[in-house]
C-alpha cells in the first residue's frame, strides 16, 4: 500500500452526516448551501483538534463549496484564532468567496483550479514546515493526493475485518469453491454506519470528481446486500437517482431466476454499479450481461476494495473506480479453480 502523508478533513462529509441523520431531504444541496452554522464550525474545530500529530497539517477540503452564507463567514473568522493554536491548510477553489476570506484571515491556503491542480499555496509563515515538502508543489493533482489518503484510511479500517484461516491451515475455501489465504468481511465493516457513510461519500467524491460534476449516471445498480447498504447512503447523497437491485444473483446464477428490480425499468438507462469487493470481476461481468439483456448500459463501476486478481472482462476501459487496492499490502492470494488465462471463467 503506497503511503501518503496527506490528511484530509472534510466539512461537507460532516455536514452531510448530520443532515442524513436528521432525515433532511436533498441533503447534498442543503449541505453545499447551508454550511457554516455554529455546530458545523464547532465540529470542524473538534476534528482539527482531534488530529493527533502536529505534522503534517490537515488539509480542510472546502473545494466542493462555491460560497458560504454571510453569517457563517463571520464564524469562519474564528478559524484565524484556531489556526494560531493548531495550524492547517484550507483547500479552496480559485475564484470562490472562500479564497478571499482565507486570504483576509491570514490562514494557510491552497488554491486549486477546477481540475484539482494546485495553482498557488499561500503560507503566512514560510519558515514553518507544514510537513508536506514537495507534495504541495504547483501543478500537483490534489485529487490524486485525496485518493491516496482514502486508500490509506480504508486500508487501516480493513485490518479489523479480515478473517484468516484457522490455525494450522493456509487457505480458506470460499463460497464459489476457490481457495484464498484470507477473507475480507466488508459486511462487518459497513455495519458501522459512520464508516458506511464515509465509504459512500468517497464513492460519490470519486464519481463526481470532487463534487464538481453533476453528470452522473441515471441509476445505481447493486448485486449484493453489502453493496446495498453502501448504496443506501449513496442514494441519500444523490436524492434523484433510482436504485436498481439485481436480485438473487447468488454464487451460481441462473438467468431464469435472476431478476432485475427497477422502478421504471432500465431500458435505455445509463447505470453505475456499486460493488463492495472486486476480485476476479465475475459479479461485475454478470451484472453487465444482465443489464445488456434488459436494454441498460453500465457506464461505470465503483468498488470499495479491488483485489486485482483479474479485471472484469465486460467493463469498459477505465470505467472501474477502486477506492482501495489492498492486495499487495495484504499479500492476498487467490487460487482460482479456473483461471482467466485458460479462458474458462
Amino acid at each position, binding site marked *: 500500500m503506497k503511503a501518503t502523508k496527506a490528511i484530509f478533513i472534510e466539512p461537507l462529509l460532516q455536514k452531510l*452526516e448530520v443532515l442524513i441523520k436528521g432525515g433532511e431531504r436533498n441533503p447534498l444541496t442543503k449541505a453545499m448551501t447551508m454550511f457554516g452554522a455554529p455546530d458545523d464550525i464547532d465540529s470542524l474545530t473538534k476534528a482539527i483538534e482531534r488530529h493527533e500529530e502536529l505534522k503534517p497539517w490537515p488539509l480542510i477540503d472546502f473545494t466542493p463549496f462555491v460560497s458560504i452564507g454571510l453569517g457563517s463567514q463571520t464564524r469562519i473568522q474564528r478559524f484565524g484564532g484556531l489556526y494560531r493554536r493548531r495550524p492547517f491548510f484550507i483547500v479552496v477553489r480559485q475564484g470562490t468567496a472562500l479564497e478571499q476570506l482565507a486570504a483576509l484571515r491570514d490562514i494557510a491556503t491552497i488554491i486549486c483550479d477546477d481540475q484539482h491542480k494546485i495553482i498557488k499555496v499561500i503560507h503566512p509563515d514560510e519558515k514553518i514546515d507544514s510537513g508536506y515538502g514537495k507534495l504541495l508543489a504547483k501543478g500537483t493533482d490534489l485529487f490524486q493526493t485525496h485518493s491516496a489518503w482514502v486508500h490509506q484510511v480504508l486500508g487501516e*479500517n480493513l485490518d*479489523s475485518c479480515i478473517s484468516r484461516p484457522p490455525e494450522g491451515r493456509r487457505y480458506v475455501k470460499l463460497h464459489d469453491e476457490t481457495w484464498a489465504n484470507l477473507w475480507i468481511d466488508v459486511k462487518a465493516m459497513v*455495519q458501522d454506519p459512520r464508516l458506511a457513510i464515509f465509504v459512500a461519500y468517497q464513492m460519490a467524491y470519486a464519481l463526481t470528481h470532487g463534487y464538481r460534476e453533476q453528470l452522473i449516471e441515471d441509476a445505481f445498480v447493486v448485486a449484493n446486500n453489502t453493496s446495498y447498504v453502501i448504496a443506501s447512503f449513496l442514494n441519500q447523497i444523490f436524492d434523484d437517482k433510482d436504485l436498481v437491485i439485481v436480485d438473487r444473483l447468488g454464487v451460481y446464477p441462473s438467468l431464469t431466476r435472476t431478476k432485475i428490480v427497477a422502478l421504471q425499468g432500465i431500458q435505455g438507462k445509463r447505470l453505475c454499479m456499486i460493488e463492495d469487493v472486486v476480485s476476479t470481476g465475475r459479479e461485475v461481468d454478470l451484472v453487465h450481461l444482465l443489464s445488456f439483456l434488459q436494454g441498460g448500459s453500465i457506464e461505470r463501476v465503483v468498488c470499495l476494495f479491488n483485489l486485482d486478481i483479474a479485471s472484469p472482462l465486460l467493463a469498459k476501459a477505465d470505467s472501474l473506480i477502486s477506492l482501495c487496492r489492498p492486495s499487495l499490502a495484504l499479500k492476498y492470494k487467490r487460487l482460482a479453480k479456473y483461471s482467466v488465462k485458460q479462458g474458462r471463467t
Partner: protein
Amino acid sequence: MTAASKEFVARLQLAGECFHIVSLDGVLLEVYDFAAQIWQGEKLYTFVDHGIDHSLKVIDKALEVLQVFCGEKVTLTPLERLILGIAALTHDIGMQYQKYPKAGMKLNARDIRNRHVELGFEMMSDILNGTFRTERGGPELGTGQPWRNFLYYGMLVGFAHSGTTIWNRLKLEAYNDKKEGGEQLLRLRLLAGVFRLADELHCEYTRIPEHWWWIKTDVLTEEERAHWAACYYTQELRLSSPGVGGARIHISWRVPSAPSEDEVAVTRTLLQDFREKKIQDEWELIKEYLKWEPAMEPCFLECKLDTEPERSPIEPMPAPVREFLVQKVRPYQLGHKKPAERIGTFELPSNPEVDDLKNKAQMFVLSGKGTLTGHFRLKTGWHTNKYLRCRELTAQIDFNSRLSTTLAKIYSDHRFTHILAIGTSMIGIGALLSLKLPARLLYTFGEALIREELSGRTDYSEYERAVFVPHRSRLLVLDDILGVGSVIQKVTSHLRESGTEIEYIRAFCIYSLGEAIRAALDLRGLDIDFLVSIPDVQYWPQDPDTQTCKICVGSPYLIRDE
C-alpha cells in the same frame, strides 16, 4: 524508593530482572515516579479513581486473568511484565489533561473523559519527543533506546484499554508476537487483551468517591450517570475458573440496608445493563486477541450477577439515575412484565408523516405494481389469493429515507441495541435507521431462510451463519410483509433455540396482510408494528383445487404452475 513503588515492583516480580544490560525494575521505578508526579493533585475528582491505586489493582486483576484463563500454561517474560506495568501506570494519564494542557487548547471535563485515551497518547508522544517539559511543564522520562521501545509498547498496550483506534493498530503485522532484541518473548496482543479485561474488571465501589453529589448535577449525561452508579453498587467482581481456557465472573452487588422490592429490581436492572452486558460486549472484542495465544484455545467467558445483593449502609439510588432506568431501560428488559395492551400488532400512530408514507405504500399496491392476483401456494404451505412484492417500493430512495426518519422518531428511546433487517427489501431502511438510532445493523439474506425451508431442514445452522445476534441484545426486526408471520416466527424461534437471551424484541413490517391469520400464530411476546394493513388478502391452509394453483416459493419471481 517508597514502600508503594517497592510493592509495585514486587507484584510484577521484576526485582533484579534485566534486559541485556538494562535493569527492568529500575525502569519501572522511574515510570512509577513519573506517574506519581502526574497524579499528584488529581484534577477530575468528579470521576472514578484513575490514579496509582487503580494501576496497582489493574495489575492484580491482569495477573489473575492470566492465572484463571491459562493456569500454568502461559508465563509472562520479565519484559512482558514490565510492559504491563508501564501500561498500568500510564493508561489513564489523559485524565490529567487539565494539569498539562496544550497551549491554547482548553477542554471541559466531559471532553477530557471521553477523549482521555487520545489525550493520554498525545501526552506520551510528547514525552517520547522530549517536549513534555518545555511545552507542558510536566515531568520527564528517559527516552533513549531501549527506553523508547519499552515506553512505546507500554503505550500501545495501555491505550488499547478503551476505544478501538489503538486496539486496531495492534493488528498490524509489525506487532506480531516476537522475541524482542532476540532475547525475550513479547506478545503485545495477549497483553492488550488481558489488560483491557483487567481494566474492565476493576469497576467496583472502591473507585467511587464517598461524596458523589455530582452525580445529581448536569455534569454527566444520563448514560454516564448510570455507568458511575453501576460502579457504586458493585461490591466485587470475582473471577473463577471452570476449566483451563475459560472464566466465570461473579458480580456481587449491594443495596441500601432496608431496600424495597422495587429498589432491588432497579439496581439489578442497572447492573445487568451497565456491568454484566458491558463486560460481555467488551469480551467479544477482547477474545480476538486472547485467542491469539494458542494455550488459551478454546476461550470463553461467562458473566453472571449474583442472585441476592448484599445489604450495606449506602445511599439510595439518585433520582436521575433511577428515572433513566425506570423509563428507558427497564421496560424493555427480559422478564419485565409488559402491560397487556403492548402485546399484539399495531398500526403506527397517525401523524402527517406517517399518513404520507401510508398513502404512498397504499398507492403502490393499488397501482398494481406490487401485487399479483390469482391463486398461490406459499412456501409455508398456506394458500393465498394475492401475492405482494415490496422490493420495488423499498428501492425508492425517497420512501426509504422518510420511513427510516419516521421510525427513528418513534423508537427514539434507548429500547433497541440492534436492528435486524430481513431480506434485501429492508436492508436499505435498516442501514439508514442505524445511523439515526444508537443501534447496530445486522442483516441476513432472506434467501438463506428460504433455501432451508425448501430443503425441509429443521435446524437453523444456515441461518446462524447468516446472522449472529449478540447475547442480551434488544432487537428491532425489520421485515417488509407480515403475511402468515413465518419469517419473523422463524427468527424468534431460532433465537430461542440457540439459547441467545434477547432482552426485548419488537418487529416492524411495512404491510400487514389479512386479518385472521395472525391470531392463529404463536406470536405472543412479540409486538409487531406495521405501516399499512391490506385487509382483502385471504389465506387458507389447504385447497383441493390444485389445478389452478401456482406455486410460489418465497419470491414472486419463482412462480410456476404446479
